[in-house]
């Protein structure tokens, strides 16, 4: 089951304390930057949950 991002909690790269930490952490290309925002690519997600655990805004959860 891939992950989803809570739009209200997410820092949307610009306001993320680490400017898109989830994008940098995910080595599967399941979280990417598109038009200056964070985008999930569900088919690439391997359910490792690294993004969920490390999101400084706790904006990521299971879909």
């Amino acid at each position, binding site marked *: 089951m891939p992950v989803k991002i809570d739009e209200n909690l997410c820092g949307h790269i610009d306001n993320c304390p*680490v400017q898109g930490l989830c994008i*940098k*952490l995910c*080595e599967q290309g399941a979280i990417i930057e598109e038009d200056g925002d964070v985008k999930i690519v569900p088919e690439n997600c*391997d359910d*490792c*949950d*690294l993004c969920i*655990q*490390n999101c400084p805004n706790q904006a990521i959860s299971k879909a």
Partner: protein
Amino acid sequence: MFNIERAGEESRKLSYNNKNCVSCGICAEVCPTSSLRLGPIVPIARGLIEMDPISVNEDSCVFCGLCSVACPFDALSLSIDGVSVKEMENYPVWDTECDVNDDDCIYCGRCYTVCPQDSIIFERNLPNPADLVRGEISIDDEKCIYCSFCADLCPAGAIIIKNNPASSVDKLGNSIEVDLDKCIFCGVCKRVCPEDAIRQVCATCMYSDEIETPEVTGEVFIDDTSCVSCSWCSETCPEDAITITKPFEGTLDLVEEDEKVCKGDSCHACQDVCPCNAVTIVDGKSVTNLTYCNLCGACVTACPQNIRVVSRTSMKLGNINSESWNEILNGLIGK
């Protein structure tokens, strides 16, 4: 790094050295006032965030020093009136050891190569190769045509030809020399020389009784403040010259269930935070080599699946004189 102080009847200072910190979180686990916090250790280990693994709440810290004695890696130190509690006889102390026996060490340098923390200070002195061979060599520069066959083939790199293109037409700008510190009198140069310009005699075998036995000397020691007791050095040492005592004994297991499974290749958070190089990903799963694991537990915290279980059965922390401290510190084992 942080240094926080409280002045009063006695002056207490808590110092944190991030260089020695392995992100295990033991300090935060034992802190009675929850004043220490373990940060995002995976992004830190991957270099995505630059911050210390541990942060302190200066307002709530009571400077008791529990964190300082519990840290097996010398990352935290409480001092009272300038004296570290680790040097006070009534405070708990780790009975761990990292030591190289100079008498047994042959200065091969394997320990230095495998240490994941660069904690081994190593230096060795090899004998001068020229003292180990005997012979004679000379090059007749009247005959030499500076073809450099000899220099290109010399296995010891002992022949130096200098060439000055401006005057090479009359050979005056050329020079050829043998570095006698390198030459082993093997004779390759003589045999390849098309002009028969080289004379060489090897007498090493003839004088073998006189030639000293090569002796390698050196110096090696383990910096005990940055050593994490992984025991790569002692396991690698061919002479059994190194003693490493680990802070804990016990096991570390991967307990998978239902949807909680190791995503080794995608995640490898455990491998990234392990200070011991004890974790590898084999066939997509995390495998911990307990020989090198120090049971610090950093990987347990790092694992987003929460499937790593450290079970410490004993620890080398002794001289715990306070009952309440004993209860808290013993919480580190038996789980």
